[in-house]
């Protein structure tokens, strides 16, 4: 048990430190241009990383049963914050997702992601007998999820919303909800998309546009082309640390969503393999902890956290390499963003505790 935890802590700290290094490398050009301080972003992130690691270790000591007890309160606080941010939040890049405190920002939707997992885990645990009944067991929690999704979409923040919904669906699947139900939802979704496309055929073109970004190189294809221009020339071993060309104003805000492109450019295919292995290790260890857990709530909690994290990572990577359209999702541990890093580390702390309590 201890060995698993130690491995997880090492993997998480390794990937976070690497992330910090890459945030510096990716951001110093923009940081100097915008703030006259090349260390601007890396200083912020570094502070959050230190706080995050301390929090992670602290949280790992807090018995996870406490979350069962305070689940509704945590959820309620996050819910209120989510509503408040719509009124009092500061707008950045066209979405009202942040409470600005000085130069820092707090992102309630990030907190809600964790709150939702806690809430759903408890719900599944309490209603485990009713999960066979779709109406009674599944629809209520789906309803709550959709309300939260709608709130997040009001900001709007499609990426975070999708991750939140997927976290719940993943948990429902593990909770034993009939697989046919997911197939039905999937089918409904496909029918819906087909209808939308039939109603307005241009949508198909827009959806497929990510497959050929060169059709609109200055519009919808811009980010993905710039990303490919970073990844491609990286080749097998990359240009070396700090040697990215694309970060010189070609790729907008390279320290956030597209940091993986800069990693590919500077460390090449080798860097991609190493980052992927670190992620797979973390997910593997997390799921291993969930599997081993004898406490059903703990099992759900650990799985929900790890699944959500893994899904977010995959979503980001698929966007960056051009497999799916741009959705605006950050890469856990690596992308710049205080709230995100803090919550991710706290979540890992919870997972660590699930393992420690065995």
């Amino acid at each position: 048990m201890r060995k698993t935890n130690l491995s997880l802590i090492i993997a998480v700290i390794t990937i976070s430190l690497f992330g910090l290094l890459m945030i510096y490398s990716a951001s110093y050009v923009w940081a100097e241009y915008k703030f006259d301080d090349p260390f601007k972003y890396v200083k912020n992130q570094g502070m959050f990383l230190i706080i995050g690691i301390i929090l992670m270790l602290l949280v790992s000591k807090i018995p996870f049963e406490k979350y069962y007890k305070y689940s509704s309160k945590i959820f309620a606080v996050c819910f209120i914050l989510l509503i408040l941010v719509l009124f009092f939040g500061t707008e950045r890049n066209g979405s009202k997702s942040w409470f600005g405190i000085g130069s820092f920002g707090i992102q309630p939707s990030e907190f809600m992601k964790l709150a939702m997992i806690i809430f759903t885990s408890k719900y599944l645990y309490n209603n485990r007998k009713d999960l066979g009944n779709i109406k009674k067991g599944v629809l209520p929690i789906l309803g709550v999820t959709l309300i939260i999704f709608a709130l997040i979409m009001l900001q709007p923040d499609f990426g975070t919303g999708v991750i939140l919904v997927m976290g719940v669906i993943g948990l429902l699947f593990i909770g034993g909800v009939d697989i046919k139900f997911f197939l039905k939802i999937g089918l409904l979704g496909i029918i819906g998309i087909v209808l939308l496309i039939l109603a307005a055929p241009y949508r198909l073109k827009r959806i497929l546009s990510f497959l050929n970004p060169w059709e609109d190189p200055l519009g919808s294809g811009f980010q993905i082309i710039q990303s490919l221009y970073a990844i491609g020339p990286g080749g097998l071993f990359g240009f070396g640390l700090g040697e990215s060309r694309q970060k010189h104003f070609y790729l907008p805000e390279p320290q956030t969503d597209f940091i993986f492109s800069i990693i590919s450019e500077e460390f090449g295919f080798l860097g991609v393999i190493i980052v992927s292995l670190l992620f797979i290790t973390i997910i593997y260890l997390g799921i291993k902890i969930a599997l081993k857990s004898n406490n059903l709530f703990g099992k759900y909690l650990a799985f929900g956290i790890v699944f959500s994290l893994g899904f977010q990572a995959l979503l980001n990577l698929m966007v960056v390499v051009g497999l799916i359209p741009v959705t605006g999702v950050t890469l856990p541990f690596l992308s710049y963003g205080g709230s995100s890093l803090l919550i991710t580390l706290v979540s890992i702390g919870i997972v660590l505790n699930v393992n420690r309590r065995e």
Partner: protein
Amino acid sequence: MKLILVIIAVIFLVIIGKVFYIQVIEYDKLNKSASNLWSRNLPIKADRGIIYDRNGVVLADNVTTTSLVLIPNQIEDKEDTAKKLAEILGVTTEEMLEHANKKTSIERVHPEGRRLSYEVADKIKDLDLPGVYLVKESQRYYPFDTYMSHTLGFVGIDNQGLSGLELMYDDYLTGEDGAIKYYSDAKGNKLELSEVYEQPQSGMNITLTINHEIQESVERELDNAVTKFNPDQALAIVMDPNSGEILAMSSRPNYSPSNYTKYTTEKINRNLPIWATYEPGSTFKIITLAASLEEGTVDLAKDNYYDSGSIKVENATIHCWKHGGHGEETFMQVVENSCNPGFVVLGQRLGKNKLFSYINKFGFGTKTGIDLNGESTGIIFPLDKVGPVELATTAFGQGVSVTPIQQVTTVSAAVNGGILYKPYIVKSINEPETNTVIKETKKTVVRKVISEKTSEKVRDALEHVVAYGSGRTSYIEGYRVGGKTGTAQKVENGRYLDNNYILSFIGVMPANDPEVVVYVAIDNPKGVVQYGGVTVGPIAKNILTDCISALGIEKQEGGLVKKASYTDAKTAKVTDVTGMTVSEAKKALSKFNVDVEGSGDKVTYQSPEAGTTLEEGETIRIFTS
């Protein structure tokens, strides 16, 4: 849960696979476009290929000039930079500011900032302003300026071939521009990454068949002709009859290729030696002569003709140029005298089918196919339109329209043993670094027209013309010149113009084994006898004389000796006056103009030396002590 772990792992593999695809399979494509995105080029103009004469004399060269290039994004203080540059270049500050503010990666200041003088370039260099660069550019340079301008052609400001050989061989002559590549960020600032120097590739060099020495002679003679006669046009071609190689060609009016914008397009585009078409006049008689000899319809020495001064053909009367006619003469004398009625008879003996088949075989009415732009075809009567009158006039060169290059090519065939060659001017194209031959022109036989024996008779007849007949002004002692004069009345709108002639001469040397054919034509010379032999003959003689040294033609015995005529100046032999007193010497040389050098009384040396034949009245210098 295990299922989900597997799914996540699989998606990771897909992502890694896609990255592999991007970084390895699409690497070249992406890397290339990304490099284009990152790098900015400071272009370096490539040298154009050099054009040489056959002996390596440079006819079209390159000089390096400096040009100003701005990179607007790197200019820190646009106002100040624009002001300083405007001052140096002598343009308005507003204009410079417009260049400095252009939303482009590299801005050329055209044309004020191009081809800068050293002083201006130095001043700009001394400013040492960011975003202001000086780049080397290659510029075409014609060392002999107007020399052969129509044939060489010229280039535009971007070194692109616009006319002549420069245009025709532009693909070969154009090099590949190089560049200094540096990396820049998306805002245009220079990055501290290494610069790449891409060396420009020079264009291919072209070697012509032109002989610079002869070409210079042609240019000089045409210039003299223009000064003396103020003609409408003038042209000359020199050909090696044994291959079709052009040794020299030029025409007047000509132009300066570096200032081509100052001339009319007609002046620039008309390469007269291949473009002009006109009635050849008597030079065309060589064809009738060659055909008659080949067909055996005349024996020049034995057959006689009585020229009464005119001949009746159907209802037309054709006059000889000599009023009253030449009287009784052999056909050799018909040729020597260029007697029109005599040639009418030769034409009639051949008949229209034979005469016109030779005209076709010699290549009239079709382009010679010389490797130059702008060649004309000329006009020959279609056979079914040829009646007795057309046959008669064609026989002595009227009513046909030919180009100078056709005449030179044809006469070359008539004297070289009967082989018609395709004329050419580009000898070879070479790669500049290794000098590897990319393309080489070999002589091309078009067809055999007449036999070697006939050709020999033609040569003999032409030598007679120069020694005894109308071509005497081109006679060079000891070098056996053959030739034929021509005087053609110009036609405009279907009518002959009064007192407006193209005078020409075609010469062959040595007549027994020709090494060179020279053709000179002067269009409408003013203030001279309108007769080819008088005006053009001496010009051709001067060019032929220069060919002797240029080609190393050896002096030989056994040529025909020139017959004096009333038009010739009298000649006398110079006697030896060394050792005489000045007054004695002057008496001995009374037929000449004596120029005394020195203040002594005894003649120690004389030039030219004793025994030389000189025209009376020429100057002899004597040196005294």
